[in-house]
């Protein structure tokens, strides 16, 4: 009882001081800007994202989005890759371009002292607006990318991930992974065109956190995006169709089976999201205290790692259960996981489990936003997917409002057994 009270008091005190103030505006360039001012440390973090993730790879050229994002810093304006990397390193800045499923972009972390900051931002501006994709670099990075794909295709975890994506997203870009052939087909012209069409000011989302003022942030956002291409109007992604339930087995000599169970489940901003989040905590999201961990790991010693998660995307992102177990007990471990899931879908969380889930999610919010690096993750996600600016402030109330019935109904709507796909790599 004392503990419960303490938890409630903490939740209240957190709500009182949460107050992460997100400022939002549209730059003259058309880019949407999200900003948190924080002067505690001499650090500035900037992320610029575009709807340019692998979902936008042209047919037959899977891997183009990733190559484009990765090669932005390998030549821009008059600078070659060596000049760019040494300039960044000389000022202690870290810059990274990468593509996810929906979005692609560049993150920059720099010291906020004017000299270092201005030099770092000038490089970021050049990289975003004027990448040169030198022919020789494209050829080299294609070769490295192909070697990495071939290497990944020998690893049971990577094989399971690719087969799972392909199986739950048949005929959809979310299910397509880069292959040797698809990367072979990519030429420099494709990178140039992909950048021109997808790295545009009107679709850019600029996230800024750190030791700058609102006025400085406005100037930074505008200068980063003013010279971006006009771009093409965003082509909508095809709708996600649900797969039919099936079990796919892939032979592999590994000591452990890699098992994935799941389906396309939920979009960003779905009204059921909080019910799924709270429910999944009990199912397999809550680390040591989840049902999957208790049944698969603690009671039976079947696995070191077992978990479940919802990964919302622009369109229906995956729900997945994952585990690894000694290959000769794959069947037994899978049955336990299936049973835990089926029972959870049917019965939902108990009152005690629901309360525990809410306590963890609400009380733990402060830990998830206690650094600029973590806040940047939320800021850019809120910005890119157009979530409410009050998302973090509303979080405790939204979690608190979830009922056991809402969890059951949300799971019934989003995790239907007739659509559940199971992939087993290296099972006996």
């Amino acid at each position, binding site marked *: 009882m004392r*503990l419960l009270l*303490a938890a409630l008091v*903490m939740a209240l*005190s*957190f709500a009182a*001081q949460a107050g992460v103030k997100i400022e939002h505006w549209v730059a003259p360039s058309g880019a949407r800007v999200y900003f948190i001012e924080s002067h*505690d*440390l001499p*650090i500035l973090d900037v992320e610029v994202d575009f709807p340019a993730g692998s979902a936008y790879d042209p047919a037959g050229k899977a891997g183009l989005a990733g190559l484009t994002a990765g090669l932005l810093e390998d030549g821009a304006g008059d600078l070659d890759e*060596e000049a760019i*990397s*040494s300039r*960044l*390193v*000389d*000022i*202690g*800045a*870290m810059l990274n371009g990468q593509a996810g499923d929906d979005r692609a972009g560049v993150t920059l972390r720099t*010291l906020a*002292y004017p000299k*270092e900051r201005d030099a770092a931002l000038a490089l970021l501006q050049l990289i975003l607006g004027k990448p040169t994709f030198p022919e020789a670099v494209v050829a*080299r990075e294609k*070769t*490295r990318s192909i070697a*990495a794909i*071939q*290497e990944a*295709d020998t690893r049971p975890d990577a094989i399971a991930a690719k087969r799972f994506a392909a199986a739950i997203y048949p005929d959809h870009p979310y299910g397509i992974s880069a292959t040797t052939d698809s990367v072979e087909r990519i030429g420099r012209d494709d990178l140039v065109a992909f950048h021109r069409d997808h790295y545009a000011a009107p679709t850019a989302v600029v996230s800024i956190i750190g030791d700058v003022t609102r006025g400085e942030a406005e100037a930074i956002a505008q200068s980063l995006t003013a010279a971006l291409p006009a771009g093409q109007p965003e082509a909508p992604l095809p709708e996600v169709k649900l797969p039919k339930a099936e079990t796919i087995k892939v*032979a*592999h*000599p*590994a*000591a*452990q089976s890699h098992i994935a169970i799941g389906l396309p489940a939920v979009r960003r901003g779905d009204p059921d999201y909080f019910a799924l989040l709270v429910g999944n905590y009990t199912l397999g999201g809550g*680390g*040591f*205290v989840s049902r999957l961990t*208790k049944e698969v790991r*603690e009671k*039976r*010693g079947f*696995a*070191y790692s077992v978990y479940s998660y919802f990964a919302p995307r622009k369109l229906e992102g995956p729900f997945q259960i994952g585990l690894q*177990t*000694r290959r*000769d007990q794959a069947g037994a471990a899978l049955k336990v996981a299936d049973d835990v899931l089926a029972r959870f879908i049917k019965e939902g969380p108990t009152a005690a489990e629901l309360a*525990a889930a809410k*306590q*963890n999610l*609400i*009380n*733990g919010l*402060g*830990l998830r*936003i*206690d*650094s600029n*690096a973590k806040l940047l993750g939320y800021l850019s996600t809120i910005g890119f997917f157009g979530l409410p600016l009050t998302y973090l402030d509303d979080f405790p109330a939204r979690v608190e409002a979830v009922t056991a019935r809402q969890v059951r109904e949300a799971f019934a709507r989003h995790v239907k057994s007739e659509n559940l796909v199971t992939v087993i790599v*290296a099972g006996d």
Partner: protein
Amino acid sequence: MNIKKAWPIAVAVVALIAAPAAHANPFEKRLANGMRVIVKEDHRAPTAVHMVWYRAGAMDEKDGYSGVAHVLEHMMFKGTQKVKGGEFNRIVAEVGGRDNAFTSLDYTAYFQIVPKAALPKMMALEADRMANLRLTPNDFASELKVVMEERRQRTEDNPQALVWEALNATAYRAHPYRRPVIGWMDDLEHMTWQDARDWYRRWYEPNNAFLLVVGDVEHEEVFREAARTYGRIKPHALPVRKPQNEPVQIGIKRVTVKAPARLPYIAMAWKVPRLTDVEHDREPYALEVLAGVLDGSDAARLSKSLVRTQKIAQSAGAGYDGVVRGESLFVLDGQPAEGHTVAELEAALKAELKRIADEGVTADELERVKTQVVAAEVYKRDSMMAQAMEIGRFEASGFNWRDYDKLLEKLRSVTAGEVQAVAKKYFGDGSDDRLTVAVLDPQPLDESQPKEKSGVAVRH
């Protein structure tokens, strides 16, 4: 130009690092039972990182018992005489926290990251399991299976991890660093619950541990709470630790690992000095800077020369950690690019060292490494856990956190001449005698032949 650019950072950061020191932050107190308490106040967010570090890691194990330090780490979550199994995890989750533990060659550490109001509860629970762990044969048998799954996941099915395991087991004949932290599978198969209990009784003592708290706390309050919790535990005499120094290596050693993979992989390790005296040592700092020149940033030599220019490597890296209880290796590793062999890559990696031994490093390169060191210190301030890890690892390796700023200062004082001198001394003529090379020989995936590395089914 580059040198001038780097100066303002260095100056500013010296100020940043020095400022807390002026207010005596971190703070330290020794409890009557010998346990040290280190508190670093950081009031940016209402969070506290609570860690207990034991100076007992895999290097303190004996042959036949490899992995027991790590198995005991798992068992520490199974409950005490007062607190049921799983209850600690449940309470941490309830307050919104995150908890875990890790075992290394040198130490074992437990941590919770919690809203600050939950700190006293964490201290009470952690102190409880320091003294009152309840080990049962059933819990042990079940958890041992989990640890074997962990070994399969981290090592057996990970070709590069197998190479590293083979590298250490080959480089060292006498020193305990030859054994893997996770343990040999055969040792795990024969481990008993009494082995874990003995380990716990031997090493889990307040006088073999230190408490570290970083966060939005008042140090005097933490000291008082520590005295009330950890302070009540009686100390015991610790076993004698033998040095087990590695005899001088008198010739190159080579080992090959065959595993399903596509690309070969090579790891090369030279025996070099570790840091023993923060104030007077010079070579460990020069070796650290050398590793930075080779692989400290995107502009470093190995990527630039081997991956981007010569294109003979898919990846290439360098590493040196002089802050250890045991011995230090200087390591180069990499995957050859398609169409190139490990022999070519081995020669090319060695050539990079020879180039530095012959020609030295440029002022720009040296300054770049120092800039990275300085910037990393600033960025670390954004994470309480990163700050805690910095202090904890340094302390657990036998150093005093008060010397950490000195270590940074010494790193910044390394000269180009010193870098060239260590390159010559440790990687020049005759250095092959202190070299161990481990190579991954990739095997095609023969899907009809599941591998059974351990050869024995688990019976526990």
